[in-house]
């Protein structure tokens, strides 16, 4: 399958390195993680702080905490979040479906839309429509997604009152959830589609100059058969990696948009964990993201090998 020992070793080293970073970075930062557990206007009994520190294992020397941290990774037990007062794993699991519900349609729709329109735009020659559409995509891709999200929120939710102002749901019925999801999915899909469009367009414009296209055309292949049966399959190959990596950053990809639409997904969880110095939660989240990225990388490689006979057969 093309994975040799060095490759595996490299992935393992990468994991080790990243997990160590996850451990070190929060601990290197100023500020006591206990601070936010107490409350702004509380005069503390120092003994209580120490007890809590012991309970959370923060009294131990760093190297012992580090060993325990690896123990937790191996057993996939991230411990408890003292801000959310529950198991980190349960917390993350409860958030995943919501973010998944947001990002899955986005990645799929954005992938299909972007790749199809990108192919057509790259194939067709220069026309005013084509140039206009390309510019539109460039503009969408260049606008920070949160700005786009805010603009949509303002226009459609505040001014026109067509959509709710915040959250994933009110009543929890399917139409209600879809109603909440519509704007964020729209904004993120536009963003992902525009990126895929631009990449695909460039790829197709390269691809269409190749000899095999000339040969196919000279044999009378034309229209959709040519564009999708020949050019697309080649131009889409590099996109596979791109989209697989999107899956890797599934949980952090919508962070800002989740914040704009006040959606309690993984993005907001990351943000709040950072701000409140919630070590166990931070570690849990980074671990999940890193695993996702590694898996997505492997998946990308496998897909690539599957799709490209040159790699598959060798």
């Amino acid at each position, binding site marked *: 399958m093309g994975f040799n020992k060095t490759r595996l070793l490299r992935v393992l080293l990468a994991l080790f390195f990243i997990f160590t970073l996850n451990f070190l970075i929060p601990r290197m930062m100023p*500020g006591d993680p206990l601070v936010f557990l107490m409350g702004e206007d509380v*005069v*503390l009994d120092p003994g209580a702080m120490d007890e809590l520190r012991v309970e959370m294992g923060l009294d131990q020397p760093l190297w012992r905490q580090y060993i325990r941290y690896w123990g937790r990774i191996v057993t996939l037990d991230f411990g408890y979040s003292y801000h959310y007062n529950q198991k980190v794993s349960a917390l993350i699991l409860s958030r995943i479906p919501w973010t998944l519900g947001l990002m899955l349609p986005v990645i799929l729709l954005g992938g299909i839309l972007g790749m199809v329109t990108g192919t057509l735009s790259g194939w067709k020659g220069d026309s005013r429509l084509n140039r206009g559409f390309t510019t539109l995509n460039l503009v969408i891709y260049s606008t920070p997604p949160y700005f786009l999200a805010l603009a949509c929120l303002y226009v459609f939710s505040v001014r026109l009152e067509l959509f709710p102002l915040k959250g994933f749901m009110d009543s929890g019925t399917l139409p209600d959830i879809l109603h909440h999801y519509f704007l964020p999915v729209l904004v993120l899909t536009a963003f992902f589609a525009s990126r895929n469009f631009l990449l695909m367009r460039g790829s197709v414009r390269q691809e269409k100059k190749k000899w095999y296209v000339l040969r196919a055309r000279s044999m009378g292949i034309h229209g959709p058969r040519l564009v999708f049966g020949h050019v697309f399959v080649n131009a889409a190959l590099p996109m596979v990696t791109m989209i697989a990596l999107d899956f890797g950053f599934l949980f952090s990809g919508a962070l800002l948009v989740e914040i704009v639409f006040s959606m309690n997904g993984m993005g907001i969880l990351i943000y709040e964990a950072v701000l409140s110095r919630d070590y166990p939660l931070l570690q849990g989240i980074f671990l999940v993201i890193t695993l996702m990225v590694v898996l997505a990388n492997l998946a990308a490689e496998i897909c690539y090998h599957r799709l490209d006979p040159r790699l598959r057969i060798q």
Partner: protein
Amino acid sequence: MLVALWAGCARPTENPLPKNRLKIGTVHRVKSRNILFDKALGVFINLSHPHLFALDPDGEIRGLLSDDYRVSEDFTRWTFRVRDHYFWSDGLPVTASDVTFSVKYVGRHVPSRRWMERSLVRTEVLDPKTAVLVFDQPRTNMDIEFTSFPIIPRHVWENIPRPRFYSENRQFIGCGPFIIAGMDLNAGVIRLRKNSYWKGPRPALEEVEIHMYHNLDVLSLALERGDIDTCYKYADTYPYTSAQRLAETGRFTIKKTRTTGLTFIGFNLKRAPGNQLGFRRAVARALDYREIQKLITSGYGDPPGAGFVPRGMPYFLELEKPTRDPGEAERLLEACGYRDSDGDGIRENADGKPLKLVLLSTTRHHRMSELVAEYLGGVGVEVELRIVESATWVAMKDEYDYHLTITRTTPWGMRMHAGYGTGYFDARRTGEGVLHTVSDPAFLGICDSLLAVRDPKKKKSLARALQQYYARNLPAVALVQRVIVTPTNVRFTGWYHDPLFGIFNLQNFLTVRPAHGIQ
């Protein structure tokens, strides 16, 4: 996509709003289903878990769950009586043993209440409604402490060994007029309904909903749009500029309440120049209090007095208000030995080093810090702003790594320790928001005396002495006394604010009612 589009067009028609369901928006984030450990939820359970006492609008102690208490001469033995008409929402009556259990249980498990258990010598239950707490030292202000101490049902909690990670619905069993009926943290909604065992005055509301928002702007828009009826933030106000706009719509009543919360400059008294009184007085004269009031609080804030203790606190002493006088400030600085000898606009100290100070504050006070830096720059003090997020701020202030800092007090914070803001300055204390900078024996003496007296007369004279101490020694300069603005939809009337929790006090939810004739 199409389905979503359809959903978008056909907005789910909401049930016509029941007239007596009150929706409150908040930017507090309830993060867990745990009433003892979640800070935000700890405020919201005021409706389901009445405290023993409450503050009335004048700041006086008033009975709530307990109607009466007695203290022994030496302030070590406190006796509380629980009112007869309180019942837990599973039907059992609230008893004295619930109170003693709560003090021990919460004291054991909740770190910020840990001192209570340590100080407790024993508890007694004299009769089903009378509880006695005996402390190891004189405790003069337990009545104030019990305006925020949760009382929980013994029969529910006694079998729960690790309450921090307890998330069952049984913990919602309370004895207030409303109890938590549902909580969806993903949707950000908490629903409270009437407690059927509530025997007190009948509330006019059927349901109370708390909706959580991630930022104030969206909350304001929701308010304007009618998604929610009012908003709440502990010790904080609705944004002033948005309030003006809401008032113009005519659909909202804007209530202004003075709080005992201040925004202030704290000096690092452990090093120069903060340890020089002349410098501190110079700072006080360099500030433009009127502009601060105009820009930071849109004209809503009150200019503070020199005695640090804000108007509205008991035994408030009217002292001369500090005023802007840059000339005087410069004179004071000269007198301290800070002169601009090289003419670059920045003063130097005796060694010829320029007076360059670090002003530490959090993003919350970013704008205020900019203003202060500018005022000080005007009198030749160069200020380097260091604006950090709160965790870093706490770490830096605990290491005294600043010259000046801007922070705030909360109503509860003004009352903690010996009261009158002493908790913020007493060098023997630690805590998230406190500066612990003053170790002057005179100050500590007043604190200890205040902690040891309950006699109103003595208390008054000590409180005044303290305010004069503040005014004379300026360990901090109050910048503005905040005013809390609460917009409420005109569909509801009968609001009742208390100085500690604002509208989120139990009494309020007994008096709020739908306004007649207004839909």
